[in-house]
């Protein structure tokens, strides 16, 4: 190994940093400039499709944190169960997506949106209507490739940072 102990390494390092001075910054200015998240983003809230749900409770069983609570009642006339209460305590949710994987009827999806900070502790508990899909709460393509195809492509740093070292 050859080391020239008279500052050549330091000068080389200074040259590297100086070259970086003329590169474009890679950071984004967050609230104004937003990157598109992954098409499979496991965003903040679950999106629940009430029409497909059969109240089987598989999601609740699959949840490692036990944050999903389902109250069902039987409807003997229609010969099926209906959900009375579907409650997700997102305060304890770790967004692992296992419930979405477990759902056999494609009625539970991960949310695509983020920025869901709340001011009150009770607001993180989501029940029935709050979980339904809406324009503000789109579903992500996690586990659903067809949905993913419809979402905009993810912004990648590698596409923005073209400079070769």
């Amino acid at each position, binding site marked *: 190994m050859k080391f020239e102990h008279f500052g050549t*390494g330091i000068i*080389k390092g200074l040259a590297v940093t100086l070259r970086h001075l003329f590169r474009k910054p890679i950071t984004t200015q967050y609230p104004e400039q937003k990157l598109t998240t992954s098409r499979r983003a496991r965003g903040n809230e679950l999106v629940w499709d009430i029409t497909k749900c059969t109240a089987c409770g598989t999601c609740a069983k699959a949840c490692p944190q036990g944050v999903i609570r389902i109250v069902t009642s039987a409807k003997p006339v229609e010969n099926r169960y209906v959900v009375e209460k579907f409650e997700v305590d997102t305060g304890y949710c770790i967004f*692992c997506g296992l419930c979405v994987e477990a759902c056999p009827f494609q009625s539970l999806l991960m949310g695509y949106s983020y920025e869901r900070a709340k001011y009150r502790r009770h607001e993180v508990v989501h029940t029935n209507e709050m979980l339904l899909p809406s324009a503000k709460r789109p579903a992500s393509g996690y586990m659903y490739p067809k949905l993913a195809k419809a979402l905009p492509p993810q912004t990648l740093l590698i596409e923005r940072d073209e400079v070769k070292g």
Partner: protein
Amino acid sequence: MALKTESFALNIGPLHPSTHGVFRMRAVLDGEVIANMEPVFGYLHRGIEKLAEERTYTGVIPLTDRLDYLASMSNNLAYVLAVEKLAEISAPERATYLRVILAELQRIASHLIAVGAFVNDCGAFFTPFLYMFREREKILDLFEMLSGQRLLYNYMRIGGFNQDIPDEFLPALQKFVSQMPGFIDEYDRLLAENEILLARTKGVGILPQDLAVNISASGPVLRASGVKWDIRKADPYCGYDRFEFDIPTGTAGDCYDRYRVRIEEMRQSLRIIEQAMKQLPSGAVKSTVPYLVRPPAGEAYAHIEAPKGELGFYLVSDNSIAPYRCHIRAPSLINLTALRDMTVGWKVADLIVIFGSIDITMGEVDR
């Protein structure tokens, strides 16, 4: 005239910028020189081994993400390998190749942080750190594309993956692999010959070869001490024997060697990724596995070469849906065994450098 001197105890951590989390070192200082040092663990103990006993085999995977949170993919891999060994499930060919790609990407990402944080500990003002974060960011982008999250991937499943890679993944990966060597060269220009870094790290914190083996050190720490031991070669899993790569080793076992080994390992990882991308077969990414895995009663130990060292999962099954016992052989914890030997006699500044060169993650040390 003899001065009356007195040594004093200095608490470094648990809240200290260079303890990589909440680690505490109770150092007894004689002036600037460390006369004695005792590591104190446990500030991030979450009882993951106990929690794992109450979850289904699949439900443990999100927990493993939270062990070494800078290398979640490797943790997932080690765990699913252990379960697959226990339940005698084999992943499809495409999944094994993908696992290799992801594990190696994760190794690069983890080593980037290790080196960046190490140079930061040497006192560089975040510049190398941020350059390395930039490349890590690209890897995280790729992981986000696959799994939907940037840090806690929860992507691997028992018997493969939960979903196949999207179409745009391989082109992006190809672009990354072709760019990355240039960036590694740039890091070398920035750091490798820097006289101050050499002065701070060469010959500092030497871990002799016999001691490194004796304390069960693993990963770059062991290899920097000159032991050519890599589980990818010694006990190949996921078909690592199909790839051509070298095991970089150090000679002196000092901080500089540990840093060099990590840089070289990144290059080797890129080699592996390139080969794996070429050989990547098509097909399913998950074999048919029951929803609730019920492995037969027994035990299995699977280990992988995680970025920090040998990460092993020892699982005991009692034929139920939850592990009876899940022990994690955490490389970060065991590599710290010789911390006292490496630091006593050095200065406070060296303590930080030596500690940084071991590269630990507190999530894995305390579990």
